[in-house]
């Protein structure tokens, strides 16, 4: 299955606030790419542009699947999801008054996913056993970390080909951070999932990412072809490796 995402010269703004300026990046089939950048720099905005939740002012987002190119900047979110793009949004965005299971089932709303509900559910429960235990609990009453797992699980339910993950480690315990990141890595390996992940936890991110971008004030300032190149970058040193022990 050939899939690639190419973003070219993207501009996006919220009224007066410019969130993206001329951002470009590529994700190839089967890759895990990290998107780094301190808060407010436009990571989420970029993710939202890909998912069709924010309309860019300029630029192209093209998703090529099996040779067919789709211009995502013209498609609605629903159509983008239909193409196999799933997103784990920042802040989880669960349906708090539905049960865990119902949240997962909604993840399978997309037509292509309805056929493989059982298989996907097994994958999710295997990855996050607590979700199986708490199937009938209302999502809104789950703890912060449990909610994060549910959000990832829900995205997996749609049998995605491209997974966009916006800060999966936020609010997770160290154990879970590494587990979650590992899980995403496994998903990438086992299911051949292509992953674009915004993440602050640099050390965790580079465990599974093969390369990464750094975004500052809406501009992609670094496009590193390898993890080492990232580690050697000045900005990374200053922002992520400075105080850390």
């Amino acid at each position: 299955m050939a899939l690639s995402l190419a973003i070219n010269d993207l501009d996006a703004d919220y009224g007066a606030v410019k969130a993206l300026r001329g951002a470009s990046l590529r994700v190839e089939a089967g890759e895990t790419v990290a998107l780094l950048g301190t808060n407010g720099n436009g990571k989420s905005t970029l993710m939202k542009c890909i998912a069709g939740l924010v309309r860019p002012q300029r630029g192209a987002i093209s998703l090529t699947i099996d040779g067919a190119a789709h211009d995502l900047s013209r498609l609605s979110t629903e159509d983008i999801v239909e193409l196999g793009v799933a997103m784990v949004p920042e802040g989880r965005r669960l349906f708090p008054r539905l049960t865990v299971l119902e949240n997962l089932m909604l993840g399978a709303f997309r037509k292509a996913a309805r056929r493989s509900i059982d298989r996907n559910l097994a994958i999710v429960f295997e990855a996050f056993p607590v979700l199986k235990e708490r199937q009938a609990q209302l999502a809104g009453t789950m703890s912060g970390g449990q909610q994060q797992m549910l959000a990832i699980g829900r995205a997996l339910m749609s049998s995605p080909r491209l997974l966009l993950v916006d800060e999966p480690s936020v609010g997770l315990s160290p154990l879970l951070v590494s587990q979650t990141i590992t899980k995403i890595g496994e998903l990438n390996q086992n299911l051949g999932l292509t992953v674009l992940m915004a993440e602050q936890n640099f050390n965790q991110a580079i465990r599974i990412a093969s390369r990464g971008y750094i975004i500052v004030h809406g501009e992609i300032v670094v496009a590193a072809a390898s993890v080492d190149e990232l580690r050697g970058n000045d900005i990374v040193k200053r922002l992520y490796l400075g105080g850390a022990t």
Partner: protein
Amino acid sequence: MFSFDLLLDAVVIGVLLGCFYGAVSLGLSVSFGLLDVPHVAHPAFLVLASYAVYFLNEHYAVDPLVAGLLITPVFFLLGLVAYRLYYETFEKRGSDAAVRGIAFFFGVAFIIEVLIILQFGVDQRSVTADYIGRAWRLGDIRIPYRLLVAFAVATALTVLLTLYLSRTFMGRAIRAVAQDQEALRLMGANPIKIKQWAFGIATAVLGIAGALLIIVAPVDPTLDRAYIGRTFCVVVMAGLGSMGGTLVAAIILGVAETIVLTMFGASWAPAISFAMLLGVLAVRPQGLFGRRS
């Protein structure tokens, strides 16, 4: 003077009356309970449906229940249009939709009232059918067939809606849509279309409920005002959006009302049933079957 017979009778009639209240509230349980649309024009649509049923019954001698079924597609479309209007004018623009929506729907209700008056005049109207005006003898108790019809329709609607909302993808999406629209978008569902569809269903249900309304009692153009309190109370007492809960709450209301009506001073009936509602809310602010996080 206490009579066991009367009490039993009151309970039976109360349950059936409650089913009727349930049937006319179910649509609201979807539109308001699930979609958060403050649909105070719900009873006005209900009365409109009754008049449509009346029209078919009067001019083409269609059985009112059949007429109710016949108009559901029309009401479904009406619901689609109504929601579109509400969406374009309120939800799309965001903030404070609920409160202004109330004023909006009051306006819509007034407009519907007047349109009915202009078309049908102010006199009350009713329909004829074999089951109206006769009763089923069950030992000492006589149960009007009208109410049995209400019972059947209400239970059928409740079961159907409950199944639809919990077993189908569309149904689950309807329940999710008021909680987080953008997230629903990420599931590949268009929240606006989902809401529109749900509103269509809520309004279609009104078609049948409107038939019940005019089967149970005659209607007049301003009857809707009497039902604003009742329907909203039922939906709220149930705790927003639970179909089974709506039916149960409605039955509680119906039984309480009937018992007070027969056993104690009839004129106190509304005070008692609404006091009960207040009591329920004071103890369980989320309603009887409400789930709040």
